[in-house]
């Protein structure tokens, strides 16, 4: 086998032996090692360990936030978010691709893959989050008239109304089932957002936001992004140490371990310039891709591939082997005293 395999490569250009790349043939002893038994024991150990951890600690399952639960818990935050969806100033409204063209995609120099790929999950926040859901409400002619007067008004007029409402809703309160908003020149926007808030609190908005307007749904992009635009979800996450500045991606709700293997990914968000950069995501992903590539290509990278030899941790791992060698050296036998194993007969 050895000879055949060696011969097949024998025609290659010979290179100097590099201890970080090449090995010497093992012509020493082979000892019994039952791989199947090892695997079965490992399987039993892991199964018992996992069962034990599951019995002792169970697993977390915090209830999801719905538009209903959000608007019920914090109607004012909902109304304040809804107006930013209507006037196009929310995070999603100004996001850019893949949702819309209102924002700039992240870039590093001329490199902007998100921009190149463009809009793939179109979201028009004013229409999708406010106007279209309100249009589904039956038997409310006054509300429908308000929506019509808003949609048929000039952009300038719309902006005047929404700006006035944004100012007023900052001081809003919620009392006995209704939003209390200081008076102002916000025209039809007042009844629109109030109705949307009632709709949200009834649970009807959750259904109306689903992307595919059909009975079955598996895509929650629209309601999720709407909820994420509010401060309610972020505050809950902050309380659970899940936000980006808290290394949140590697954490889990409660006191459970999370995705600890993401430590390096989350680390980059905590250090300059990524900490404050508006292109942080692309920068961090770029760094992680380069580092992942480096890890995969360690065997090819001079210096990096020598670390194991320099650190000499291998001396600990193979200490028995090195002890055997020095014992044999003392008794005058070389380390490769044993005859090479006879080749296995094969069809080659």
């Amino acid at each position: 086998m050895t000879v055949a395999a060696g011969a097949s490569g024998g025609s290659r250009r010979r290179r100097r032996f590099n201890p970080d790349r090449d090995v010497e043939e093992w012509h020493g002893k082979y000892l019994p090692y039952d791989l199947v038994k090892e695997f079965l024991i490992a399987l039993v150990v892991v199964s018992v360990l996992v069962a034990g951890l599951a019995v002792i600690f169970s697993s977390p399952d915090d209830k999801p936030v719905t538009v209903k639960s959000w608007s019920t818990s914090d109607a004012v935050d909902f109304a304040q978010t809804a107006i930013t969806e209507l006037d196009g100033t929310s995070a999603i409204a100004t996001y850019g691709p893949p949702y819309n063209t209102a924002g700039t995609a992240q870039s590093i120099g001329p490199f902007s893959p998100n921009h190149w790929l463009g809009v793939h999950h179109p979201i028009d926040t004013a229409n999708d989050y406010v106007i279209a859901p309100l249009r589904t409400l039956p038997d409310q002619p006054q509300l429908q008239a308000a929506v019509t007067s808003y949609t048929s008004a000039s952009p300038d007029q719309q902006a005047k109304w929404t700006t006035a409402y944004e100012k007023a809703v900052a001081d809003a309160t919620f009392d006995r089932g209704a939003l209390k908003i200081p008076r102002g020149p916000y025209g039809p926007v007042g009844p629109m957002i109030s109705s949307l808030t009632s709709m949200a609190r009834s649970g009807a908005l959750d259904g109306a936001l689903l992307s595919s307007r059909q009975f079955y749904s598996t895509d929650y992009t629209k309601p999720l992004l709407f909820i994420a635009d509010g401060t309610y979800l972020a505050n809950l996450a902050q309380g659970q140490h899940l936000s980006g500045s808290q290394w949140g991606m590697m954490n889990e709700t409660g006191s459970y371990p999370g995705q600890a293997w993401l430590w390096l990914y989350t680390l980059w968000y905590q250090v300059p310039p990524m900490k404050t950069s508006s292109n942080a995501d692309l920068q961090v992903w770029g760094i992680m891709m380069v580092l992942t590539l480096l890890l995969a290509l360690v065997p090819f990278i001079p210096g990096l591939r020598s670390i194991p030899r320099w650190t000499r941790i291998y001396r600990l791992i193979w200490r028995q082997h090195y002890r055997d060698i020095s014992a044999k050296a003392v008794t005058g036998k070389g380390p490769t005293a044993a005859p090479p194993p006879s080749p296995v007969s094969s069809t080659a």
Partner: protein
Amino acid sequence: MQMLGAVKDSLVGSLINLTGPGKYVHWGFIQISVANLVVIGLMVIVFFAAILIPFRRHGGRGR
């Protein structure tokens, strides 16, 4: 039957409740949950244990 259900519930429920708010360690800009710190610490400990604890071969010294 009821007892069986109770046994099952205690078996499949958690004995130690980890659903409460987590504890976090802050050290400069580093912020890590105690749970993750325990996992990472155990990894390091297990790694060094694995290379330091003597391993006895099946079948002893061979031939």
